[in-house]
């Protein structure tokens, strides 16, 4: 009964989404206020019904209703309750439903926080989001219905993919989707502006906080995903350049370019066409990522079960949404006047260069991700593009953006003076280059990659400090600096922090794969590891061999780690559960490989010493916090009111 209710709620949601799309868009074109006023209630109603559908599916999972096919495929009676809940979005169908739910959430947020916007703008933005919702809900109902029954019911489920049974996975997809889907707001604003022809600073100001919040969620989500891969895959890596990861990284790069370009459009009225194109690109790449992962066009380590009908539907949807928006862009582009003159050396020019570099980096990732598909489609053979390509190409391309990050915030709008800039930054530059050259010498000898990483990291950190100092010198007080400034500085500092972490762990990690018998010792990075054997330990839905590894330093016992090798009951899948001792300066990571004898007394033990790896995630966290902080700047709340003529204070109150 409950699954049928969910199914029904989904149908109602689709009808409401169609209403939300068609009536307000038509009304906005005709100037019909009555039709436009349908937007808000339809959007909110749609969200409520998608939420009901989601609740019904979650209920089916929590109550182990194995007569629902999706539950039978993706859950298991012995699965702990929290994972039974997260299994709701662990499957293809469920994750699409989560996507629709989050889209509904964002639309509702727009409908609530848009009291100060002109009615036709609101109607168009919500209408466009309704169109996107309609597409996703129709996709769910026609090709990916999560509520299909399985008759007769299965006796038990086939279990959730063990890889996904991890605390990081509990919140990673919702955070990631908040980011992906959040770019739909910027997209909808851009389309609305193209439709109305009102591409001005006000449009940029309205889009900015939404874009920044979505970007912050995406940053957080990607960070969590990387942390999950590090903990769960058991190989000690934190980024694999897998198509699924690239699918989230490409919108992030476009989004990063977009938030910077929006700043120029808002403050100076320049780059309008460019900013609009980026807004379209960021969300298009989110959709493209969905297509690539769901359609089976690319093979990926974490691909969902694939089905050509789904691929064809999403491709059709992409053509309508992306093709339609780019056609609209091409048609309207001549109307976009470029405003605000600037010289070759100014904040505008620097931000534009940063944008170009970010997009070039995006291009390398896109090319690497699609290359196997392109060759295959041209009948030129099947290949796979791996991490060596991405590391070799991406790092040099992104490096200039990191350098520009230091200068951009300090340069004046319109026209900056190069000699003045040199005078302000010469010490920062000298210190960062010196650190980059000397620090590797004290570690393991000269290493150009380490030099590049350290130089850029110190450079960004120092320029952030200079930014604060200059603001304070000109009569500011720390607590009177606007949140937008704080947010930017924190995010940039997070980037410096993350780059430092990446540089250290990529160049100085030590690993040791060793065959160990009970009582064996081994040394790594000054620590002594003693293997004390394994014990059988049953888990809720798996059997585990739990190893005990004692770690000591200079004869002093420090701590004991318990890596596990698990065999999941329902699927028979083996899983490695690494044991990690975290601290601010290094991680010690121990994973069990394979038992080498039948009594399981000799094992392959994999030991990593990962210096400063946590800095990477601390950096991502700072970037995300910076984003949230910047989006909460009070000027977005105040200025919007003042900008819209004829808007009464009563409405805003």
């Amino acid at each position, binding site marked *: 009964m409950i699954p049928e209710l969910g199914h029904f709620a989904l149908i109602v949601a689709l009808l409401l989404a169609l209403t939300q799309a068609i009536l307000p868009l038509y009304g906005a074109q005709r100037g019909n206020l009555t039709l436009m006023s349908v937007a808000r209630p339809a959007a909110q109603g749609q969200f409520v019904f998608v939420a009901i559908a989601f609740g019904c599916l979650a209920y089916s999972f929590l109550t182990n209703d194995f007569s629902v096919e999706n539950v039978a495929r993706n859950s298991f009676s012995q699965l702990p309750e929290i994972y039974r809940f997260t299994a709701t979005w662990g499957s293809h169908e469920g994750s699409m439903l989560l996507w629709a739910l989050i889209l509904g959430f964002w639309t509702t947020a727009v409908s609530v926080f848009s009291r100060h916007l002109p009615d036709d703008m609101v109607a168009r933005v919500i209408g466009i989001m309704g169109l996107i919702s309609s597409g996703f809900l129709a996709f769910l109902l026609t090709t990916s219905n999560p509520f299909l029954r399985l008759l007769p019911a299965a006796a038990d489920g086939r279990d959730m993919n063990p890889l996904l049974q991890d605390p990081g996975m509990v919140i990673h997809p919702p955070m990631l989707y908040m980011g992906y889907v959040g770019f739909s707001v910027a997209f909808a604003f851009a389309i609305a502006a193209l439709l109305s022809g009102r591409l001005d600073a006000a449009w940029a100001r309205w889009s900015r906080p939404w874009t920044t919040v979505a970007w912050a969620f995406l940053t957080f989500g990607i960070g969590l995903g990387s942390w999950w891969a590090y903990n769960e895959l058991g190989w000690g890596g934190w980024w694999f350049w897998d198509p699924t990861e690239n699918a989230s990284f490409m919108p992030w790069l476009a989004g990063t370019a977009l938030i910077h370009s929006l700043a120029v459009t808002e403050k100076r009225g320049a780059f309008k066409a460019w900013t609009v194109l980026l807004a379209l690109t960021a969300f298009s790449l989110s959709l493209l990522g969905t297509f690539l992962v769901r*359609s089976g066009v690319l093979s990926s380590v974490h691909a969902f079960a694939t089905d050509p009908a789904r691929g064809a539907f999403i491709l059709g949807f992409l053509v309508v949404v992306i093709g339609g928006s780019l*056609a609209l862009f091409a048609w309207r582009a001549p109307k976009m006047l470029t405003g605000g003159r600037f010289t070759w050396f100014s904040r505008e020019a620097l931000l534009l260069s940063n944008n170009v570099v970010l997009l070039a980096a995006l291009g390398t990732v896109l090319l690497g991700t699609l290359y196997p598909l392109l060759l295959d489609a041209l009948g030129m053979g099947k290949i796979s593009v791996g991490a060596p390509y991405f590391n070799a190409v991406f790092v040099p391309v992104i490096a200039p953006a990191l350098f520009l990050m230091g200068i951009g915030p300090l340069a004046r709008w319109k026209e900056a003076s190069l000699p003045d800039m040199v005078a302000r930054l010469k010490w920062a530059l000298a210190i960062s280059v010196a650190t980059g050259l000397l620090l590797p010498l004290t570690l393991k000898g000269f290493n150009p990659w380490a030099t590049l990483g350290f130089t850029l990291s110190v450079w960004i950190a120092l320029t952030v400090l200079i930014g604060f100092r200059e603001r304070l010198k000109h009569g500011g007080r720390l607590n009177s600096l606007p949140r937008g400034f704080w947010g930017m500085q924190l995010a940039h500092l997070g980037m410096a922090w993350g780059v430092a972490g990446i540089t250290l762990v990529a160049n100085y990690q030590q690993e040791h794969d060793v065959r160990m018998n009970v009582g064996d010792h081994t040394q790594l990075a000054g620590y002594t590891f003693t293997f004390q054997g394994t014990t059988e330990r049953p888990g809720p839905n798996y059997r585990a061999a739990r190893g005990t590894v004692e770690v000591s330093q200079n004869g002093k016992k420090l701590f004991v780690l318990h890596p596990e090798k698990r065999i999941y009951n329902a*699927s028979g899948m083996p899983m490695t559960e690494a044991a990690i001792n975290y601290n601010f300066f290094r991680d010690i990571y121990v994973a069990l490989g394979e038992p080498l004898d039948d009594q399981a007394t000799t094992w392959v033990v994999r030991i990593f010493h990962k210096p400063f790896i946590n800095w990477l995630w601390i950096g991502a966290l700072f970037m995300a916090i910076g984003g949230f902080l910047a989006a909460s700047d009070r000027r977005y709340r105040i200025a919007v009111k003042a900008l819209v003529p004829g808007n009464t204070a009563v409405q805003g109150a």
Partner: protein
Amino acid sequence: MKRWLPLVVFAVLVGFFAKGLFLNPREVPSPFIGKPAPAFSLPVVGNPGAAFSPADMKGKVWLLNVWAPWCVSCRQEHGVLMELSRNQPVPIVGLNWKDKEREAEQLLAQHGSPYLAVPDDLTGKVGIDYGVTGTPETYVIDKAGIIRMKQVGPISPEVWKEKFEPKLKELGA
């Protein structure tokens, strides 16, 4: 006309995607099924001087697993193969494909080897003869030396149960 450029780029991509939908990166219908396994003779990793040739396996049903030390999904598959090599009577031969960094011997020494023998296909030529498209791939070869099945991508316990077990039973392994 540069304003049309994004649309044109997108249209080209859509063309590729549409084509891509009808290609499966995982499942390549192998023209070798039902044909004799191409002959080769390669040195064996970890056993200097020895050579392996498919002719050595005449009279047995066996698996030729194409893997590489640099391949991440092979590592995922390794655990499954280890499990199989302990419990299953079918011999697995691991073709070490394009191991330019020469890591296979060390890896197998450390993690254990599920393989009866590891022929060393450094140049990838044998891989070409077999139509290898990527790693891991596994060929099922019967007693007469005929290729009977090809699995593209890692063998999971599920794949083993659904695809390999019935096939091996049919071939009388």
